[in-house]
């Protein structure tokens, strides 16, 4: 029933409207990108700009900053808070917040120490128990929100205090438990890196996968009469990804190499990205974050979506707590306190996940935490006092949120909210 007047005959199904601008080819891609940025759809642009700025500043102040050794340490540090930040992405997607991730991670690290070292549980069981406590915490937050209408801001703020208290309580008067240095867990958190050939092989994978999956998708779209990406473009993209990753891997391998803990983090990010982008659950999360009522009317179980977001967030926070205990080889009263909370939230926001819900991606946790940890690492190298470090990190978070707000306003005025 297509009318010939407004549709070019023979054109692709999704490119037949004459009002649609041609965005094919390299020129079109660049133009489309500029359009998106101008209308406030910044994507990962702030991160790239931020990273370049940070690297330039700190490298000029202290040449150790970009040394392979420091970067490997950076990746170790990224992984623990990064996994917590991944959970924050989940709750931000549905437009909620969890302010207690730091305390939950601290509690889980304390639990690990008590159950494993003091009570003599097997380490795996202690880890599962710590993660289970996180899971239950998230379920309680969801219950408070769903059944009592308690805003997550308030419930998790109370959780922040309550779980910090519980952490101090179970650690007892000694206040800190040392984890055995030669255990596999501490090894994993401090030393374990990939053999060089494994890291190089893994670095090829994203490019190969991007090419294979992209090509298959393009073929399917072509068969269905939709516009598709050219093979050349895909090949170029895959080559660029592979080259960049191989270079980074080579550089890191000049020092100790790529930490397995970082590989675990990246693996979780990729899995989360798939879940958010390619499953019905992820689509429902985005819908609930965008328009709760519309999602409910579409038959989505909104309460279950909230519950899954909070449970996932707290479980990931607990996982991060276990890993940070492994990283420090101790469960202490300081674990999860200080800036862990804000770093995790800031990383998600800096990476491009909106505080206002319905917009974000798992990769924002990865990109954001690299920015945050770079700042932390750079400031540590400059030997600045923690007072200054807190102030600077606070300013960076404020700038990130301002950029998010401005971009959101621009999106609304450009009709891309």
């Amino acid at each position, binding site marked *: *029933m297509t009318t010939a007047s407004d549709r070019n005959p023979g054109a692709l199904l999704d490119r037949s409207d004459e009002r649609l601008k041609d965005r094919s080819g390299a020129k079109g891609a660049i133009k489309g990108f500029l359009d998106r940025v101008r209308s406030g759809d910044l994507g990962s642009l702030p991160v790239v700009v931020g990273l370049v700025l940070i690297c330039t500043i700190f490298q000029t102040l202290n040449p150790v900053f970009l040394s392979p050794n420091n970067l490997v340490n950076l990746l170790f540090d990224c992984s623990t808070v990064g996994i917590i930040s991944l959970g924050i992405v989940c709750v931000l997607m549905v437009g909620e917040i969890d302010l207690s991730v730091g305390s939950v991670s601290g509690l889980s690290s304390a639990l690990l120490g008590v159950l494993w070292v003091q009570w003599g549980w097997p380490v795996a069981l202690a880890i599962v128990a710590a993660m289970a406590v996180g899971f239950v915490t998230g379920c309680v937050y969801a219950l408070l929100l769903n059944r009592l209408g308690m805003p997550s801001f308030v419930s998790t703020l109370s959780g922040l205090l309550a779980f910090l208290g519980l952490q101090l309580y179970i650690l007892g008067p000694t206040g800190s438990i040392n984890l055995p240095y030669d255990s596999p867990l501490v090894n994993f958190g401090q030393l374990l890196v990939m053999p060089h050939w494994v890291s190089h092989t893994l670095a090829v994978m994203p490019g190969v996968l991007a090419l294979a999956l992209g090509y298959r998708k393009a073929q399917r*779209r072509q068969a269905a009469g939709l516009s598709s990406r050219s093979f050349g473009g895909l090949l170029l993209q895959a080559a660029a990804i592979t080259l960049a990753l191989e270079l980074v891997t080579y550089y890191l391998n000049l020092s100790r190499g790529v930490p397995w803990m970082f590989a675990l983090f990246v693996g979780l990010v990729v899995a989360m990205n798939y879940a958010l982008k*390619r*499953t*019905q659950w992820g689509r429902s999360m985005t819908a609930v974050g965008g328009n709760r009522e519309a999602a409910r*009317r579409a038959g989505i179980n909104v309460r279950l979506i909230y519950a899954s977001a909070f449970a996932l967030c707290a479980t990931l926070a607990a996982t991060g707590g276990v890993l940070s205990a492994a990283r420090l080889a101790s469960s202490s009263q300081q674990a999860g306190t200080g800036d862990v909370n804000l770093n995790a939230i800031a990383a998600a926001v800096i990476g491009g996940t909106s505080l206002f819900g319905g917009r974000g991606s798992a990769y924002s946790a990865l990109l954001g935490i690299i920015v945050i940890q770079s700042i932390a690492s750079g400031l540590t190298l400059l030997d600045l006092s923690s007072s200054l470090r807190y102030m600077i990190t606070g300013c960076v978070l404020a700038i990130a949120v301002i950029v998010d707000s401005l971009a959101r306003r621009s999106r609304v005025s450009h009709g891309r909210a």
Partner: protein
Amino acid sequence: MAIPDTPTTTSRPPVLSLRGISKNFGAVSALTDVDLDINAGEIVALVGDNGAGKSTLVKILAGAHMPSSGSITFDGKPVTLANPAAALKLGIATVFQDLALCENLDVVANIFLGRELHPLRLDEVSMEVRAWRLLNELSARIPSVREPVASLSGGQRQTVAIARSLLTEPRVILLDEPTAALGVAQTAEVLNLIERVRDRGLGVVMISHNMEDVRAVADRIVVLRLGRNNGIFLPGASNQELVTAITGADDNAVSRRGRRTAEKARGERP
């Protein structure tokens, strides 16, 4: 020119038929003894003043409310619409006034929201093709289905909402104020769309306050007043007749002007 309850133009039984529907909210009876027939391939406009019971009636049809008494038959079989899912399963789709679209999702995601193909591995290509086919069948003019809904105009959003409701292949579609808050061109676009939906053989129930829109597309105009049937009109009915039926008063601005015009016409006639 009120016409009898059962139209003589069609011999087939109506798709959806309501008999003696009443709905009480405590001591208030929102609907009393209301009858309504909806035929396939017919647009029934439901008009009435604020508080006449239009929305209550639509909510009963959508399964959001249960009637206090009365019977509903679908395809000649008595049915109970216990919840929205039951109504949807039967083939009654509803497009609510506030469009219930997610502005941050694109058109395809909105059309398939809650009914995605392959939940664990979304089939974006099939969904996009299906969305285009649906929109093209409706001759809807949406430039790109991969843009977020936030970038669409009011009429285009209404189109997406209607296309979304057609995905389940319903037999009857309920439209609550489909042209409210739309401009002239967009209203025309949506009215065209409603006619095309009817031409697909669906029964359409349309609530509207705009008499012009109603008379433009409706095949039958059902007037509710204070929760009761107050006449069924053909689209040729005059504005005055409709307003009188809706307000229940002979003496109102429309009827006064109508009388003046008529007197003037008589006076001018030799």
